[in-house]
């Protein structure tokens, strides 16, 4: 048997990474934990236990924002996944059209987020915006600054415009990686287009779709910049999502205890949903 010598010097090897992780993740997180468990004002600190958590969880405004957020994120998934998948299926497979369509598709992804917000803020205006005034000319009473539903839908359409290309690009890369032999075998087996999609393309895209769902869920669940620019969370609270709510608590009202408690809850929410999605999608197709 080989004698293993114990050497405490081995800890030195772990040290750099520990410091890095500590400063990038643990220390900031612990700061938030500190704020969430104490009432801190200047130099006075009072330990309050879970008081902040209790308070923030009972806040009806948070409940509303949370429901709004869930509805928004699920709408985003429900629209962007099928749409992105559909776009990727009809994208050209060879020739110059491939590069052309990829560039056109990627354009929204290259625009800074607040610029996206600005574009839609102007585009949607019912007096001078091309989109908004067209809707008004068609006889619709569209006005995102006054109507809650219009505002909510505008943010949703903007997000679809902004992020569906990401789903489409992911799916397209997934489709391109399916070997030709699968399509040939399906053609020999007499499979219909639907069968090809159902039994070859969809199963082979599973991993890509898991990534798309996770990315789009997390991103939409944390959406901040674009609605902030377009509607500022209004009218009323109709486009106040969780991030806006948090910012209002922390920066607007300087209510650090509540904000810290809610930050942690928010964090756990996202972890939980991602875990659920990941597990469900991984189980799918394994029987």
């Amino acid at each position, binding site marked *: 048997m080989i004698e293993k010598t114990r050497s405490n010097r081995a800890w030195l090897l772990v040290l750099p990474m520990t410091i890095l992780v500590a400063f990038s993740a643990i220390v900031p997180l612990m700061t938030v934990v500190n704020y969430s468990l104490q009432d801190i004002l200047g130099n006075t600190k009072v330990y309050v236990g879970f008081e902040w958590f209790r308070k923030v969880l009972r806040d009806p405004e948070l409940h509303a924002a949370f429901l709004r957020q869930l509805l928004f994120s699920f709408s985003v998934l429900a629209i962007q996944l099928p749409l992105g998948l559909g776009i990727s299926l009809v994208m050209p497979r060879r020739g110059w059209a491939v590069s052309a369509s990829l560039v056109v598709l990627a354009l929204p992804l290259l625009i800074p987020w607040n610029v996206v917000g600005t574009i839609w803020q102007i585009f949607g205006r019912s007096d001078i915006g091309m989109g908004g005034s067209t809707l008004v000319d068609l006889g619709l009473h569209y006005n995102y600054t006054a109507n809650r539903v219009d505002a909510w839908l505008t943010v949703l359409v903007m997000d679809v415009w902004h992020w569906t290309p990401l789903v489409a690009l992911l799916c397209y890369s997934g489709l391109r990686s399916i070997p030709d032999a699968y399509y040939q075998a399906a053609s020999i087996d007499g*499979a219909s287009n639907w*069968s090809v999609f159902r039994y070859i393309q969809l199963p082979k895209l599973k991993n890509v779709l898991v990534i798309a769902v996770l990315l789009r869920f997390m991103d939409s669940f944390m959406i901040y910049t674009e609605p902030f620019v377009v509607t500022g969370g209004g009218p009323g609270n109709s486009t106040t999502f969780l991030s806006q709510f948090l910012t209002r608590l922390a920066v607007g009202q300087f209510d650090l205890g509540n904000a810290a408690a809610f930050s942690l809850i928010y964090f756990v929410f996202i972890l939980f949903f991602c875990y659920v999605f990941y597990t469900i999608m991984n189980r799918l197709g394994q029987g």
Partner: protein
Amino acid sequence: MAEIILQGISHAYDVKRGTADRPAQLPPAETLALRDVELRWRDGGAYALLGPSGCGKTTLLGIISGLIQPTRGTVRYGGKDVTMLSSRERNIAQVFQFPVVYDTMTVRDNLAFPLRNRGLGDAEITRRVDRIADSLELTPVLARRATRLTADQKQILSLGRGLVREDVAAILFDEPLTVIDPHRKWLLRRKLKEIHKEFRHTLIYVTHDQTEALTFADEVVVMQHGQVLQRGTPEALFRRPAHTYVGYFIGSPGMNVVPCEVVREPGGARVRVGGHVIAVSPEAAAAAEAAAGSADRLELGIRPEHVRVAGDTGDALAFAVTTVEDHGRFRIVTGTLAGSDRRLKIRIGHGEGRDVAVAAGGTIPVQFPSEYLCLYRDSRILAPMAPVVPDAPGAPAGAELLP
């Protein structure tokens, strides 16, 4: 099931097929994937398409299966022109290089899939699937998901998807053993043989591995540069390679090919290799006689197995040994004939040439028996050789190339 006939097939990947009135303009012959291929595949035969990578064998398979429309030429199944029909309409089955199974389905559903697509009734589907699963030994895993099979089981399963269609015209294999572990390869090969015996489908098997081709097929087609060099039984390819490349490609090590010249003698022509005059068969001698004096390149081919290590008889040639590789059951000896610098290989079986010391640096006496010699003119065999092995009684004809 039907005879498959390929007539005048040429193919270039970047040229569209023309119409009957206006055939496509073909690019220069060297750039073609296939050049004027004429082949006839008898119904129920087991064939192998053998050749190096890039010789056009996979293209030819694609043309037979309907995945590729040839730039020129006709594909017939029986009497029917199927050139423009899809794979599905041709009713063929294909096993690909990598196992293609439907991941989300069970083994049973995989087997049933082609039948369901053709709208068969449930009872009939169950009957056929059970029968094929039984033949392929897939019954114990029928309820299992197809992704959980081993690679060789997956290949068997993709073969099964072809076999369930009882009227399938032919089953094509595109290097199906590429991803199979070496020790499972022979199992799968044996399985294929059994399946062929049981179902008597026409099987066409593409490979670059001569062992696979020679053990699988009743008849092997050897291709190079988009052309068919020879087709014949494994025996014929071994004994009478029609082209020096076939001689080199088949056999391990390949055939020795050495430049030679014709010597006219009163008793008939002979050939001279280096400084030695060697007798050849009467047919070869006559053909050599006819070729004498032309500018064509003449070469003599002999298999390493057929070079005889002679005792100290008079007409033996001196062979200078450079290296000896001992393979256990035989030795491969490399060296040169005196008066020539062309390297030759000789295979000496265990127990053969005991009385002769074979060692690097030494010289051994060898003979080239005339019955094993092949004479080549510009790489093509001279003198039409009689069939090496007579056809078994009742064996269907059709082994010949089309005119």
